[in-house]
């Protein structure tokens, strides 16, 4: 059935409005990064201005960007990999051998995400202090793995659920063991799902600020701590803060842009569609 013109126009307008609303803050941040500090807070806001690289230079001069970038990269990739390695067997068991309480377990896992992080800051901080994990890559990788595990399990579970059980049965009849079933049947079929799960996990970790700021000092500080250092209680700082933010999100935006096909394909593949 063909949609009426009015519906198509409405969809177009709503779609573009939503896109503009989501994109505008990033666009404005990118513009502000190239303004002078007074121009950044000018009233009315300036759309036309002479761009300057002064903020980028100031930001790069005052902090070691590569150190923060390297930490973000190591921590987000390692934690994502670990979460997928730990989450996949759980999702497999729950998808193909569900018990009476499988749904409850899944909901319970997700409910752990609903607790405000600050509520467990002091106990986690004390555990990290006593275990010597403060300001270490291992510490942050552990916390991010645990933080993302519920989402990873849920996503992979929904991708596995979409695979007809008959296929697994057939493979089993042909003598395939669980590992062979996984590597030669399930993995190729759900590869886009794994890719989007990994990408989403990397994005979540890359943007996480609370734990990274509270559990690190200098050695393991990722890019979120880099951004936080440019906010100032006194004096103008918006242009420099925007420049720092642009530098921090640029790698992840580039990754999202390069992999947008896989992301969309993965997200529309499972139950998140």
């Amino acid at each position, binding site marked *: 059935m063909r949609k009426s013109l009015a519906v198509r126009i409405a969809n177009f307008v709503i779609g573009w409005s939503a896109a503009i609303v989501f994109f505008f803050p990033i666009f404005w941040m990118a513009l502000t990064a190239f303004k002078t500090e007074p121009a950044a807070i000018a009233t009315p806001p300036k759309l036309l201005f002479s761009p300057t690289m002064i903020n980028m230079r100031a930001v790069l001069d*005052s902090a070691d960007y590569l150190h923060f970038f390297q930490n973000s990269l190591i921590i987000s990739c390692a934690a994502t990999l670990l979460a997928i390695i730990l989450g996949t067997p759980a999702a497999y068991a729950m998808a193909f051998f569900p018990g009476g309480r499988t749904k409850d377990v899944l909901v319970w896992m997700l409910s752990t995400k609903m607790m405000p992080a600050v509520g467990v800051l*002091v106990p986690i901080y004390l555990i990290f202090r006593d275990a010597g994990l403060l300001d270490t890559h291992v510490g942050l990788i552990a916390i991010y793995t645990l933080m993302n595990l519920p989402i990873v399990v849920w996503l992979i579970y929904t991708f596995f659920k979409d695979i007809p059980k008959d296929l697994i049965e057939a493979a089993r009849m042909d003598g395939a063991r669980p590992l062979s079933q996984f590597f030669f049947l399930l993995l190729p079929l759900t590869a886009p799902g794994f890719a989007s799960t990994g990408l989403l996990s990397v994005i979540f970790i890359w943007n996480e600020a609370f734990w990274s700021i509270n559990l690190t000092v200098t050695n393991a500080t990722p890019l979120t701590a880099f951004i936080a250092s440019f906010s100032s209680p006194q004096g103008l700082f918006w242009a420099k803060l925007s420049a720092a933010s642009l530098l921090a999100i640029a790698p992840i935006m580039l990754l999202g842009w390069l992999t947008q096909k896989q992301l969309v394909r993965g997200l529309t593949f499972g139950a998140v569609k």
Partner: protein
Amino acid sequence: MRHIRTLVTASAMLLASVSAYAQTTVTIGTVNNSDMVVMKELSKKFEESHPNIKLNWVVLEENVLRQRLTTDIATKSGQFDVMTIGLYEAPMWGKLGWLAPFENPPDSYRIDDVLKSVRDGLAVDGKQYALPFYAESQMTFYRKDLFDAAGLTMPEEPKWTDIERFAEKLNNPNKGIYGICLRGKPGWGENVGQITPAANGFGARWFDMDWKPQLTSPEWKAALTTYTGLLKKYGPPGAASNGFNENLALFASGNCAMWIDATVAASFLADQNQSTVIGKVGYAMSPYGTSKTGYHYLWAWALGVPVSSKSKAAAQEFIYWATSPEYIKLVASTRGWAAVPPGTRTSTYASKEYLDAAPFAKMTLKSIESTDLRNPTKDKVPYYGIGFVGIPEFQSLGTTAGQEFTAVLTGEKTVDQALGNVQKFTERTMKEAGYIK
């Protein structure tokens, strides 16, 4: 014999080189304001003269830093060796035994040169728990050109009634000029930090000597009515969300006829990269109502060493350097006199070069010297602090009060309702904390 001598010399050289490489790392937690940024840049000089000390910098936004440092010091984690703290934390943490005292400052440090009001604010029972890096008070900034054009004269010590009269005359929203800019943004370090000294200036206080809250007193009502009334009638639109930075931007762009805020704003208003009103700014004391006790606050950013630090001696060595008269001279010689950290040393204000470069210096000094952190109000109180109350519960009380005061500005609540709510919340908090029954 010669071989033995060579062997001894070689061993000594080896030992010396090993000890040269045995560097102590000092981790410094600080805020991102211009004075701290300069300190970070100039600290390379310290590292050059102290090759056995390596400095690590952690720069964070003020509220994040406060939370981060509090977690670290309360759990004795020892992640930081130097902490940037204020007059609010230093006496509290010193009393709790969380900070290492500065027991024997070197003679060259000249501790008596540090301004007494600031030094005393960072000490408990005669022990110095932090050393000031810069200090500030409050003052009135006004546009001399607008005052001249309107035939007005700002007294050196204006009253709130003077400010209201001037604001009424100079308010001209059609030309983008508002009579007065004040902080409306909620927060214990934002509007509450400004309204509390204003209330002191009307003879109000947060607590009586028995820790009973006094927020519904006629003095508090007069102060809050004056402050919010001025902003509502002659303030810029959206004043309820304006803090220091927003008002700085407004005044620097020529949109405010008067602004009452931190003395440190003077150096921003004299900065060509930030201000369009250079040479047009006059300075006066902060206004008062009926009392001249505690009507302008005192704040200092200071450096302290937690007892949990593993490098206490090196940390204190750095602090002595960063707050010394030599450091001030170093800033002056590399960045100019206008950039030196204000409000800490008498010798800074005795320098002709500084007085020439900073026309606001005398007013800043007068404001700072006329404060007494431990006697902040007309009637006696059991607490220290002028723009705050020096108890751990104040962060929560101030946050609630800030929201209530802003609600008056937005018209959601009356002055009586807001003060009544703050009174109730304060009573409940103080009962729960065991101050009152």
